[in-house]
């Protein structure tokens, strides 16, 4: 397995590998640039993007708040459509259910369309251990399967590879040299997969949305492979996260507007399939038997948690990855889990009960908020990252040295006289290290900073030390305020007073 896709070590160690891989960084930049500018164009062209975003958020908030009701409704309807519905509490249960069905069907081969849940529960490994062939039919997934890696992006799993690397992998698979030309490479995979589709006993899919009112499942894709997976094999197994529900087809319209535009900048994906039960006698094609496995795997723990419940609103568009300046530098495998980028940095620890070994990913963010701004359902990922860091500290998993530093910070900042004294002492202490009014020392906390920068020095006179003189000087020649400006200020004060008396908390923001 590629070291960069290993879950071993710390996020810092994994990021170091990626930071030294120019192929990876260039490939990630190239594709995320294309995706984020595509999204910008598509959302601007839409015209009422912010309103639809808010509508999407409201639909997700409502659905998750009443998830028990809508899940029940979905299951009842799906069962009456002839679907076998199963529940899996965790990854092991999910794979066990799949294995049981596969054994019943005496399956030799499973063909899959792209599914992040199947990656999350590691279904391929389980199938292969039992001697059942599992083939990914999404081009990107096929590539990383050949490479023995996990996805490094939610939507574009092989985003970290350039076409030369892909040509190498596919040439090895083909047993002949394939030119690094996208048409040739895609043509090879298409021919190869055609045979696999015809041979497969089971088609396995994920689920973008599940429609409660009719018990249907909906898939968005561009390659047509998911449609093949859901029409050719006799048995279909769909793995879905328990939060994939939307109440109605009308709600799906909002999601169908938000998801492709946010993911790839498309108005709609090339294919959108809605599947309501197995093949009926009047149908020309479709599976004879259909199973839906509803996977919890840590999701229900977020229900009722005020800081993390909104995590379940995610529609897996990947927009937060495409705008993330950290993801841009380190790619997806550095995050160590199935899900990468800002959503992965929160989702992975959250689904894993915030266990200590995952907590360090929350530190790999500058908290710039680009993820929140890009999110089509406005999940406040930047706040969740801070919540994860706080919980880690509260549970005593914090770094001892950092905790000491923060105690020192609080002692210093508790009192302005102490802070002023520290600034004066700091000026003396920095003297031996100052060179051309900068500090170049690469020691202690300055080591990392000064590897890339020159640190500034404390000012010879702090602002507070200059204040007396400065204020006396400006007060000596007072200017009169423009009456229009004064009036505006008075109006702001009056408005504030008004909103204070009308709102009970008096805490309305001026935004």
């Amino acid at each position, binding site marked *: 397995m590629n070291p960069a896709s290993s879950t071993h070590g710390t996020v810092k160690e994994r990021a170091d590998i990626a930071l030294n891989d120019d192929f990876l960084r260039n490939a990630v930049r190239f594709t995320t640039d294309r995706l984020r500018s595509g999204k910008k164009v598509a959302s601007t062209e839409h015209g009422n993007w912010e309103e639809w975003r808010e509508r999407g958020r409201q639909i997700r908030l409502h659905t998750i708040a009443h998830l028990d009701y809508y899940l029940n409704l979905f299951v009842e309807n799906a069962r009456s459509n002839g679907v076998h519905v199963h529940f899996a509490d965790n990854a092991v249960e999910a794979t066990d259910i799949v294995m049981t069905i596969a054994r019943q069907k005496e399956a030799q081969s499973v063909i899959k369309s792209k599914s992040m849940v199947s990656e999350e529960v590691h279904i391929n490994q389980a199938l292969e251990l039992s001697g059942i062939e599992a083939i990914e039919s999404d081009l990107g997934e096929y590539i990383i399967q050949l490479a023995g890696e996990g996805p490094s992006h939610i939507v574009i799993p092989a985003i970290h590879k350039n076409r030369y690397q892909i040509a190498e992998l596919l040439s090895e698979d083909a047993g002949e040299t394939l030119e690094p030309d996208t048409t040739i490479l895609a043509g090879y995979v298409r021919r190869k997969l055609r045979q696999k589709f015809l041979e497969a006993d089971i088609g396995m899919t994920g689920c973008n949305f599940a429609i409660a009112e009719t018990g249907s499942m909906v898939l968005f894709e561009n390659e047509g492979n998911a449609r093949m997976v859901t029409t050719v094999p006799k048995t279909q197994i769909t793995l879905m996260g328990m939060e994939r529900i939307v109440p109605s087809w009308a709600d799906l319209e909002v999601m169908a507007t938000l998801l492709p535009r946010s993911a790839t900048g498309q108005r709609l994906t090339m294919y959108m399939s809605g599947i309501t039960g197995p093949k009926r006698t009047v149908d020309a094609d479709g599976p004879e038997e259909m199973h839906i496995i509803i996977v919890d795997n840590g999701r229900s723990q977020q229900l009722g948690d005020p800081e993390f419940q909104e995590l379940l609103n995610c529609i897996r568009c990947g927009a937060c990855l495409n705008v993330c300046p950290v993801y841009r530098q380190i790619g997806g495998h550095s995050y160590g889990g199935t899900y990468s980028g800002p959503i992965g940095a929160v989702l992975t620890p959250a689904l894993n009960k915030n266990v200590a070994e995952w907590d360090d990913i929350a*530190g*790999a963010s500058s908290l*710039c908020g680009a993820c929140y701004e890009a999110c089509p359902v406005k999940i406040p990922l930047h706040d969740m990252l*801070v919540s994860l860091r706080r919980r880690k500290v*509260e549970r005593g998993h914090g770094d001892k040295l950092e905790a000491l530093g923060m105690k020192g*910070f609080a002692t210093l900042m508790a009192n302005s006289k102490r802070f002023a004294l520290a600034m004066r002492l700091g000026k003396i202490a920095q003297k031996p290290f100052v060179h051309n009014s900068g500090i170049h020392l690469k020691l202690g906390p300055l080591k990392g900073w000064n590897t890339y920068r020159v640190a500034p020095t404390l000012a010879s006179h702090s602002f507070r030390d200059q204040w007396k003189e400065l204020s006396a000087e400006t007060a000596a020649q007072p200017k009169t305020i423009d009456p229009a400006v004064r009036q505006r200020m008075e109006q702001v004060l009056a408005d504030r007073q008004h909103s204070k008396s009308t709102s009970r908390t008096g805490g309305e923001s*001026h935004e």
Partner: protein
Amino acid sequence: MKVSLFITCLSDAIYPKVGEAMVRLLAAHGIQLDFPPVQTCCGQPSYNSGYWDETRTAARTILKAFQSSDFVVSPSGSCTYMIHHYPELFKDEPEYLALAHELESKTYEFTQFLVKVLGITDIGAAFPYKVTYHPSCHGSRLLGIKDEPIALLNHVQGLELVPLPFAEDCCGFGGTFAVKMADISGAMVTEKVDHIKETEAQVLVGLDMACLMNIAGNLRHRGEQVRVMHLAELLYEGVNIR
């Protein structure tokens, strides 16, 4: 009306010229700033790292400092946004909670105050240089400060504003992130400076000294001559040039 300066610990200790520029610019418009000396730091370093008890200790000095102010003005969008976390931080301390709500409603970032409150977009400055602008994340995304600095810059005589490629991308500062994840942060600031160089601007202007400290540090490390200024400094110097 009492308009108070929330200097921020960084500008107090390292960049006092930014505070001086704000004081002198506003004084020229008849607004004499007040400076309550009990203020220390907004507490953002400890807040973002998850140490909220320590944050409250620092934040109390800010809440006390500005109790009697009508307006509070700060040279940082990030520190201004930190005030918006105070109601959550003090939700179990009713006395401070009331102060927190009040402070949130009366605190403005410098350009917000000039443009949105005072209605001033032309400060009467001239600055005959090629300038590019880096919008800091917290100010632009979380406080929504997008048009204000552009309006101010567009009114500066002789100033050529050149767009910064990937302007909205974070510079990589992120407080303790720059120390804890030094190599990721280093890669981010390196890319930011690459884009600044592409503009061939003589001056980089911004609204947050923490981000500007980060960018200026990398520029200097690479021997680049681009001058880095807070918009208040640029405007103040521009008034004197004129």
